[in-house]
């Protein structure tokens, strides 16, 4: 038997290596049929299976055993079999269950997007926009936690957390010593450090990048700007840290570098983890060799203010008042 297996997702057949998960097979096809993933992170071993947003229906188990799977399965943790048929966006059952998961993820979320630094690049925001309800059916008090500063660079805002465990895996796998984990149980579980110890090691800043929501934010960027007003530029430097290759994205507002993050791929995952020196301490253009503007997907809210799509919208072309306003905004933005 060859190492390639055939899998059909929403009617599109693709050949993938044996042992690939359904989610990764779907990512190879790309487009709308890729299930959303809040907790799975391809760079982190053992992640996934927790948030349940990536659930899909397996309508045919495999060529050998064509029975469908009895329940919806988490696509990030289910490996493909030869001849498997999967329904994602073509199954109303899946969409309904996913909408249910999104609703459940949001019931205890504070919905403080207007003051959240993550807004604009938040996975939960995107998910809620696509699958959520207009109105909440949850009428009870939301659970709250106090904000914690873990170290002088990172702030933990537990109210926003969806307990994806990504940061725990990150700390486990790319740093030498893990100093944080999950405390308590059930809906009172919280990410925490041992008696509020500062998370302090060379790679700790990566927990900010892997966090799908605004639970872990960069204190050096806190309330500086909305992400869609900043302009991302890929850059690099010769980093002295042995494990860091210094390839980053700089987020500019005018001349200032407001923050530095690792580069992210189309699924919002970090390409390579960066060290804390690059992330927190090098905030001058002179520290970096600029490469080119970062590609931002058209569907992202960040793209609305991005040079690549800097064309007036059709509606603006027809309306004189809007045209003038638009012109003023343009000048304001470009005045350096």
């Amino acid at each position, binding site marked *: 038997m060859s190492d390639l297996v055939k899998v059909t997702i929403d009617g599109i057949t693709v050949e993938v290596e044996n042992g690939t998960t359904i989610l990764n097979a779907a990512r190879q096809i790309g487009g709308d049929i890729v299930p959303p993933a809040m907790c799975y992170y391809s760079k982190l071993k053992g992640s*996934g*299976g*927790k*948030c*349940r947003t990536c*659930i899909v229906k397996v309508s045919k188990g495999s060529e050998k055993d064509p029975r469908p799977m009895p*329940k*919806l399965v*988490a696509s990030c*943790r289910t490996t493909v079999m030869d001849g498997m048929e999967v329904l994602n966006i073509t199954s109303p059952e899946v969409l309904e*269950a996913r909408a*249910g*998961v999104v*609703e*459940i*993820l949001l*019931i*205890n979320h504070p919905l403080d997007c207007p003051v959240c630094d993550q807004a604009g690049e938040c996975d939960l925001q995107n998910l809620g926009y696509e699958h959520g309800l207009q109105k909440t*059916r*949850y009428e*009870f008090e939301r*659970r709250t936690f106090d904000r914690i500063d873990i170290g002088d660079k990172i702030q933990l805002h537990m109210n926003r957390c*969806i*307990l994806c*465990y990504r940061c725990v895996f990150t700390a486990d796998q790319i740093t030498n010593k893990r100093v944080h*984990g*999950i405390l*308590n*149980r*059930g*809906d*009172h*579980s919280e990410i925490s450090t041992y008696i509020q110890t500062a998370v302090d090691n060379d790679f700790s800043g990566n927990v900010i990048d892997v966090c799908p929501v605004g639970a872990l934010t960069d204190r050096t960027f806190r309330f500086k700007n909305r992400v869609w007003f900043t302009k991302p530029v890929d850059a690099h430097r010769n980093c002295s840290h042995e494990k860091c290759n210094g390839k980053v994205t700089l987020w500019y507002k005018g001349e200032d570098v407001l923050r530095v993050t690792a580069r992210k791929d189309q699924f919002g995952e970090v390409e390579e983890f960066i060290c804390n020196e690059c992330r927190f301490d090098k905030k001058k253009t002179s520290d970096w060799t600029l490469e080119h503007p970062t590609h931002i997907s058209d569907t992202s809210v960040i793209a609305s203010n991005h040079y690549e799509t800097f064309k007036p919208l059709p509606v603006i072309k027809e309306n004189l008042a809007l045209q003038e306003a638009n012109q003023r905004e343009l000048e304001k933005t470009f005045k350096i």
Partner: protein
Amino acid sequence: MARKLLLEHINVPGINTLAVYREKGGYRAVEKALKTLTPEEIVEEVKKSGLRGRGGAGFPTGMKWSFLAKPEGVPRYLVCNADESEPGTFKDRYLMTHIPHALIEGMIVSSFALGANTSYIYVRGEMMPQIRILERAIEEAKAAGLLGKNILGTGYDLELYVQPGGGAYICGEETALLESLEGKRGNPRIKPPFPAIAGLYGCPTVVNNVESIAAVVPIINDGGDEYAKIGIGRSTGTKLISASGNLVKPGVYEIELGLPVEEFIYSDEYCGGIANGKRLKATVAGGSSVPILPANLTLKYANGEPRLMSYESLSEGGFATGTMLGSGGFIAFDEDQCIVRNTWNFSRFYHHESCGQCSPCREGTGWMEKILHKIEHGHGSMEDIDLLWDVQRKIEGNTICPLGDAAAWPVASAIRHFRDEFEWHVKEPMKSQSTNYGLANYANPIEKKEEVKQENL
């Protein structure tokens, strides 16, 4: 008098000591198994007996054993799940308190059958007295050469350890139990791989309930065929039922599977009827996770035939009119009990015990609890009942482990069968705080629906 296999000598004074236990024929199974049978033959006997897991799911034990992977050079483990914490179930605690050697004998035989040289009994943390009893019993068995190196001169070594848990319901789920046993946070693992392939410390592992392991002893003593003669259909053998609630004689009973439910509740040999001359309103037949049934459906099927205490008979009719045998925690409610309050109480338990790993269960159980609390205290509205139904549907089947289902089923069945009572709580908020909905029509004979003849179009 029905046949007893596990609790035969329960009333003998000193049965918790090795001397008395051996006097009554204890450890015969160890001698027989280790000296005359091969591991394969034991597995075959257990398969023949048709023994099904007594922890709740009812998976055939012999089949589970035969799935165990046997790679060379890798140790195999047997873990006994004594993390009994389901509301309404207390049979394992009873067994461990009074006949600890029955469990240890079963562990020796089962470990031999599976080729395990190290076995664990994972006991719930709250059961400290039972942990001490087991440890004392293990010491006794070790001194008598029944445990340790070269058991009874057969060359088989077995070390048996008792591990106290931290007292979490979720650690009764087999993969969470293994995580906890490894010293980690007790979160259920994502399956596959199943424990039979990669369980404790990544090695092939079998996790069995206390009662399943104890039941191996009579199977080896009398033979699997003899054991299979007891019971009915695919539900063979005897089962410990922990009866509680408004019964004249609550307690742990050993029944032959296939006993009519009516006989179990009302006969003097078992529970002796409903206490204080009241009438039965509802039952939970197998521990808090299984669907609750009104009195009429407990005693009879929808078609009027009597319901029996067996895996198949209790689940007859699916979730629409049936329930499950589960772990055998039989709770009876009389006419003065409030189903809404009881459902809220169960929900509160699942909310408290959810591990918080996957989102539908973590957030959904709390949501259900809050809605039920609202309805129970007279602040509910009709939409809340529909919302509750919708929330439980979003939890069921979408979680990593069965705790999500276990939290959703009692709520779903309570709404399905007792919707009148929920609506009464909404319509009569003041009255519902001081009085009770009562028996209503929940014990009435089930109306046989006349079949509508389909006319030719």
